[in-house]
C-alpha cells in the first residue's frame, strides 16, 4: 500500500447528507482446501456475518451475494483459478488470503485487475512496500505488538530459560523474532529455538530438542499444529502452565472434539489480538451465522474477528466514498479506520455508518482491536489480550 | 558353393594360445569370477585379422562373458587385451564400439519403440546429426541420413526384414530380432564384428543366405568373431575355431582339425553329429550304427550318473 489516500477521485465533493444506494460486491479467497483449510471456516464466517450485519443495518449499502472462493494452498494452486473468477465477477474487493505466500502469488494479478486485496491474516513485512497501487490492505495486526506482549507475559511470570517452537513462515519467524528480542531484553534467555515447515506433520525431533534444553517455559508460535504439539508436549511430561500460545493456536480446546479428552491445558497462557468487547457473544453470533448457512459448528475462531472487521471497513469506506469502485473505496479505507487521525470513534457498523451519513468521519474500532491503518494499508494499533486456560480447557481473558 | 577358407593364420601349431600372423585382438590373462565360479580364465588368445573365427564351447563355458569383457560391458578381475594394437582394458563400451569393434547380444536387445529402420540407422557411426547443435540444422545431416537409410534398407532386404522396416522392433518375432541385432551391428561397418549366436532361432534357409553375406564382408576386409552352436555353420564359414570350456581356451585351429579333436568332441560336439535322431529314438526304421549305439549308451550313463548325483545331494 503505497498510497492509502488520494487515489480516489471526487469523494471530497460528496455532499455529506446525500442518501446512499450502493451495492458492494465482494469475494473471498480464503483457504477452503489444502493445509490451511482449518482457517477457512472462521474467516468465512467473519465475512458472512459482517455482510449480514451490514445488510441488516440498511444504511444505504448492501453487500451483494458474496462470491466464495478458495485460495487453497501453494501446493494445490487453487488460488490461481479463484482470483480469476473473482476478477471476472467484478468484485470490489477480495478478502484473503490467509497465508502471506498465497497472497503474494496472486496479488499482482489482483492489482492489475484493479481490485482490492484485503487479508485478514497476512503478517509478512513484504507487503508494506509492495507495488500495489494502494489496493492491498490487511487487518491482521503486525507481529511487533503481539510479540512484545507475549515476551512480557512470559517474563513477568518469572521464567528465565525459555524455548520457542515456531513455524517457518512470515507469521512464525516474525513473531518469534520480536518475542525473542523482547524476552531477552527483560533478562531472560532463549535456550532453544526450533522451527518447522508449514505442512510438516511430525514434530518429534523439535520437541525432544526443546525438552533437552530443559526450559522453564515454552512459547509455541504455531497454527493448527498445536493439536499435535500440545498433546505431545504434555505426554512428555511438560507442565501445561508453562506453555505460552499465540493467536494462531489459542483455541477453546475444552469445547473442541479434536482435542484429546484427557489432555489438560490448564494454566497455559496465550495472547491474541482482541477488541474491548468480550469475544464470547461475538463468537456465538459467528457460529449461529455459520450454522444457519448450512455448515457444522465452528470449532475454531482464528482470524474471524479480522475477517469481520475487514468487511465492515470496506463497507464503511464505500459509504464514505459513495462508490463501489475499488480505487475509490481503497482511497477511504485509511480514513474510516481512524488513520487520518480526526475520526469519531465507533465500534459497530451501524454507528459508524450513521457518522458517515451524517457527514462526519468515522473511526472504526472492531473486534480485532482499534485498527488504524497507516498509509501502507497496515494496521498500526492493536490491543492484545492475554488469556489463560482453566480446568475446563477453555481460555478466559486475564489482563482486564 | 563352398568358398575357399583363409589359411595360414597361425604362426605355429594349432595349440591353445598360438600366436597369429596378423592378430586383430590379443587377449592376455583375462579372468572373471562370479563368487566361487571362474567364468573366464583365458591365458592367451589371438584372433586373426581378415578371417572368420568361431568361438565354440559348451553352455556356460564363458563365451558371452568373454564378449562382455572384451567390449567393455563387464570388468575383469584381471587381464589385458588389445584391439588393433590399442590397449582396450578399462575403455568404456561405447568407445570400444567406436574403434570398430562391434558386438551383438545373445539375448537380443531390440529398441522396442523405435521402428526397425530407426534401429538400423542408429547403428551407423560418425553421424553428423548426432551432435546436439548440428541436430537442429537438418541441412548438416540430411544427406548423410539419406545415405544411411539407403544402406539400411539394403541390409534389411538381405535380412528379409524390409517388409517390417516401419514396424516397431517390439513387434518382431524371436528370430527376426536376432536378424535385426546382427544387421544393426553391420550398419557401422565394423573392423571386427563379434556375433553372439547370431543364427540361433534363424530359419535355416535364411541362415544360408546370410552366411554368404558374411563371407562377402570378409572379402571386403572385415574380421568376424562369432559364437555359435550350429556346427554346420561353423564348418561352413569359419576359418579358425577357438574352443572354450569352463572359462579356458582348450583348443584352437582350423575347423576341420578342431572338430576332430577328441577332447572337443567329448566335451562339446558329441560324436554323433550325423546320427539320425529319428533312428536313435526308434521312431523310424534305420540301421543303428556303432556311433548311434554309443550315443545311446552315453546318454544312459549320463542320466544315471546325474540321478545318482542328485540323490546324493538330496541326502
Amino acid at each position, binding site marked *: 500500500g503505497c498510497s492509502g489516500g488520494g487515489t480516489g477521485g471526487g469523494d471530497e465533493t460528496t455532499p455529506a447528507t446525500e442518501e446512499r444506494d450502493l451495492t458492494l460486491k465482494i469475494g473471498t479467497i480464503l483457504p477452503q*482446501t489444502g493445509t*490451511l483449510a482449518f482457517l477457512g471456516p472462521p474467516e468465512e464466517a467473519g465475512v458472512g456475518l459482517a455482510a449480514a450485519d451490514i445488510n441488516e443495518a440498511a444504511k444505504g449499502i448492501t453487500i451483494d451475494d458474496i462470491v466464495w472462493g478458495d485460495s487453497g494452498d501453494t501446493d494445490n494452486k487453487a488460488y490461481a483459478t479463484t482470483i480469476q473468477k473473482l476478477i471476472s465477477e467484478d468484485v470490489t474487493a477480495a478478502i484473503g488470503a490467509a497465508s502471506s505466500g498465497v497472497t503474494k502469488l496472486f496479488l499482482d494479478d489482483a492489482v492489475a485487475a484493479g481490485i482490492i486485496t484485503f487479508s485478514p491474516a497476512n503478517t509478512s513485512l513484504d507487503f508494506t512496500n509492495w507495488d500495489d497501487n494502494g489496493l492491498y490492505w490487511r487487518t491482521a495486526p503486525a507481529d511487533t505488538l503481539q510479540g512484545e506482549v507475549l515476551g512480557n507475559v512470559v*517474563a513477568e511470570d518469572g521464567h528465565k530459560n525459555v524455548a520457542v517452537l515456531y513455524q517457518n513462515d512470515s507469521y512464525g519467524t516474525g513473531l518469534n523474532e520480536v518475542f525473542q528480542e523482547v524476552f531477552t531484553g527483560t*533478562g531472560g534467555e532463549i535456550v532453544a529455538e526450533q522451527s518447522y515447515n508449514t505442512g510438516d506433520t511430525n514434530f518429534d525431533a523439535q520437541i525432544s530438542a526443546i525438552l533437552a534444553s530443559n526450559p522453564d517455559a515454552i512459547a509455541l508460535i504455531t497454527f493448527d499444529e498445536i493439536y499435535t504439539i500440545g*498433546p505431545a508436549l504434555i505426554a512428555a511430561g511438560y507442565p501445561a502452565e508453562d506453555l505460552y500460545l499465540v493467536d494462531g493456536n489459542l483455541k477453546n480446546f475444552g469445547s473442541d472434539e479434536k482435542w484429546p479428552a484427557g489432555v489438560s491445558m490448564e494454566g497455559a497462557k496465550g495472547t491474541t489480538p482482541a477488541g474491548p468487547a468480550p469475544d464470547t457473544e461475538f463468537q456465538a453470533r459467528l457460529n449461529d451465522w455459520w450454522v444457519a448457512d448450512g455448515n457444522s459448528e465452528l470449532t475454531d475462531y482464528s482470524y474471524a474477528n479480522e475477517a469481520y472487521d475487514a468487511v465492515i471497513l470496506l463497507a464503511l469506506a464505500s459509504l464514505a466514498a459513495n462508490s463501489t469502485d475499488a480505487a475509490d473505496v481503497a482511497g477511504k479505507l485509511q480514513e474510516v479506520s481512524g488513520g487520518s487521525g480526526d475520526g469519531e470513534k465507533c465500534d459497530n457498523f451501524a454507528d459508524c455508518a450513521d457518522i458517515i451519513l451524517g457527514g462526519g468521519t468515522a473511526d472504526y474500532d472492531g473486534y480485532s482491536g482499534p485498527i488504524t491503518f497507516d498509509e501502507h494499508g497496515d494496521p498500526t494499533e492493536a490491543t492484545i489480550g492475554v488469556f489463560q486456560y482453566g480446568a475446563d480447557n477453555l481460555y478466559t481473558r486475564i489482563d482486564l | 558353393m563352398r568358398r575357399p577358407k583363409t589359411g595360414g593364420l597361425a604362426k605355429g601349431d594349432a595349440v591353445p594360445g598360438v600366436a597369429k600372423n596378423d592378430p586383430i585382438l590379443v587377449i592376455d590373462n583375462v579372468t572373471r569370477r562370479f563368487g566361487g565360479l571362474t567364468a573366464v580364465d583365458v591365458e592367451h588368445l589371438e584372433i586373426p585379422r581378415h578371417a572368420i573365427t568361431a568361438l565354440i564351447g559348451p553352455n556356460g563355458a564363458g563365451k558371452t562373458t568373454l564378449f562382455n569383457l572384451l567390449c567393455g*560391458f563387464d570388468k575383469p578381475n584381471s587381464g589385458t587385451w588389445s584391439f588393433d594394437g590399442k590397449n582396450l582394458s578399462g575403455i568404456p563400451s561405447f568407445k570400444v564400439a567406436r574403434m570398430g569393434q562391434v558386438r551383438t*547380444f545373445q539375448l537380443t536387445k531390440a529398441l522396442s519403440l523405435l521402428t526397425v529402420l530407426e534401429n538400423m540407422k542408429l547403428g551407423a557411426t560418425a553421424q553428423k546429426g548426432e551432435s546436439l547443435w548440428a541436430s537442429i540444422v537438418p541441412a548438416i545431416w540430411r544427406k548423410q541420413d539419406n545415405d544411411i537409410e539407403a544402406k539400411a534398407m539394403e541390409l534389411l532386404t538381405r535380412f528379409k526384414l524390409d517388409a517390417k522396416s516401419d514396424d516397431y522392433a517390439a513387434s518382431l518375432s524371436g528370430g527376426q530380432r536376432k536378424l535385426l541385432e546382427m544387421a544393426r551391428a553391420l550398419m557401422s561397418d565394423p573392423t571386427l564384428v563379434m556375433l553372439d549366436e547370431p543364427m540361433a532361432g534363424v530359419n535355416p534357409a535364411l541362415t544360408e543366405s546370410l552366411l554368404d553375406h558374411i563371407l562377402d564382408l570378409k572379402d571386403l576386409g572385415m574380421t568376424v568373431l562369432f559364437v555359435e552352436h550350429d556346427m554346420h555353420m561353423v564348418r561352413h564359414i569359419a576359418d579358425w575355431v577357438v574352443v572354450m570350456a569352463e572359462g579356458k581356451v582348450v583348443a584352437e585351429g582350423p575347423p576341420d582339425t578342431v572338430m576332430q579333436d577328441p577332447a572337443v568332441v567329448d566335451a562339446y560336439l558329441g560324436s554323433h553329429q550325423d546320427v539320425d535322431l529319428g533312428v536313435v529314438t526308434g521312431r523310424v526304421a534305420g540301421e543303428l550304427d556303432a556311433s548311434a549305439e554309443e550315443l545311446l549308451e552315453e546318454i544312459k550313463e549320463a542320466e544315471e550318473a546325474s540321478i545318482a548325483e542328485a540323490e546324493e545331494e538330496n541326502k
Partner: protein
Amino acid sequence: MVFLSAPTGARADAPDTPGGDQEQTDFYFGGVITYDDQPVEGVTMSIEGNGFEAETVTDAEGKWRLYVPEKEEYVLTVDEDTLPDGVIVDPEQLPEGIQPKQGTTASFDVAFGLTGSKIVNLFLGEGERITTSFWDQLIERLMNGINFGLLLALAAVGVSLIFGTTGLSNFAHGEMLTYGAVMALIFGVWLKVPMYITIPIVILLGAALGWALDAGLWKPLRRRGLGLVQLMIVSIGLSLAGRYVFQFFIGGGTYQLPGAGAPRDIVFGPIKLSWIDVASMAISIVLLVAVAYWLLRTRIGKATRAISDNPGLAAASGINVDRVIRIVWILAAALAAIAGVLWAYFRPGVKWDMGVQVLLLIFAAVTLGGLGTAFGALIGALIVGILVEISTLWIPPDMKYVGALAVLILILLVRPQGILGRKERLG
C-alpha cells in the same frame, strides 16, 4: 565489583498482588528477582522520573510491579541493601540493553516498547539448568527413530510388495495410511468403539480397501494393458482425489485418537516411552515378522516375485496372476491402514494429509533397501526413521528431511541397486 554491606533496616511488606499497593494506570514496569534460582522476597524497588516517584517491595515469588502515569523514560532502582547478604546486582547479569546508570550499580534507565508494560527481570547468582546430555538425547531419539522406522516399514513393505509384483509405484499409498487413521477416528472416536476392537476393524477395512482398489481399478487397468507410467499417473490422481475426499469429510483440522498423548511414563534410563509407543512397536514387529514368514515360507510370496519378473510366464506356470496381485493389494492396504493408525499415534493426530507427508519417506525407504525387496524396505525404513529423528542434532530442524534424503542419495551412489537389491547380468 563492589560489595556492599549487608542489608539493614526493616523490610516493607509486599502487596497482595504485584503493584496492588499503587494506583493502577495503563503503564507499568514489572519483573521478578531471583537469586540462585530462588525468588527473593522483600527487595525494595523504586521508580522515579518525569516528576513521579513510587516504591514497592517484591513478594514471595520475587515479583514486583510499579505503575507509572505516562509512557516515558524512568529510572528504576533496586535497593541492594534489601537483597540477601552479599548479593549485589551484577552488571553481567542484567537484561540485554540495560546498563546501570553512571556511578551506580543498581539504578537503570528504563523505557517502554510499543506496549504499556516493560519487564525487567533480575536473575542473580548462579542459576543452574540441567540439560539432557548429547548421548541421552541421541539414545532417546534413536528409540523414537526405531519406533518411527518400524511404522514406516509397515507401509514400506506394502509399497515394496506392490512394486515388486506389479511394477507400480503406488503414489496413493500415503492415502491408504490416512484411510486407516480416519477409519480409526470414525470407529474409535466418533462411534466410541474401544481401541482393541477398532484396530482389528481398521485392519479389516484396510484389507477391504485393498480388495476394492484392485477389483475396481487396478485389475481392469491391467486388463486394458496400461503402461506402468500411466498406472503411476493414475495412482497420483487417486492420491489427489483420496486426499481431498478425506478433507471433504473430516475437514482440514487435526483429530486425536483415544489415548493419544498418553504420558511417557515407562522409563529406561534416558528413554521414556508411553504404553502407546510400546504397543505400537510391538504391533509393528509382530506384523513385520508375520509378513516375513509369509514371504519366505509360502509359495505366494515367491509367486509375487515371479510375477514381477514376468507376468506372462508366471501365468504360463499356472500362477493365477490376478489372484496373487489381489492378495498383495489386500495385504499392502491392510498394513498401510494399521501403519496409518500407528502414525496417528506417533505424530500424534489424524489429519487429512498425514499420509502424503510420509509418502516420500516411505519411497525413500523402499528405494534405499532396494526396489521390490521387502526386507530391503524394512531396513531402509529403519534407516530413514532413525535419520529423520536424529539428524536435527546437527542440522537445523526445518531441514530435518534433508538429512534423510541426502543419505538416500549418498547410499545409492555407492550401491546403485539399493542395500539389498541385486545387479542384473548383461548379454
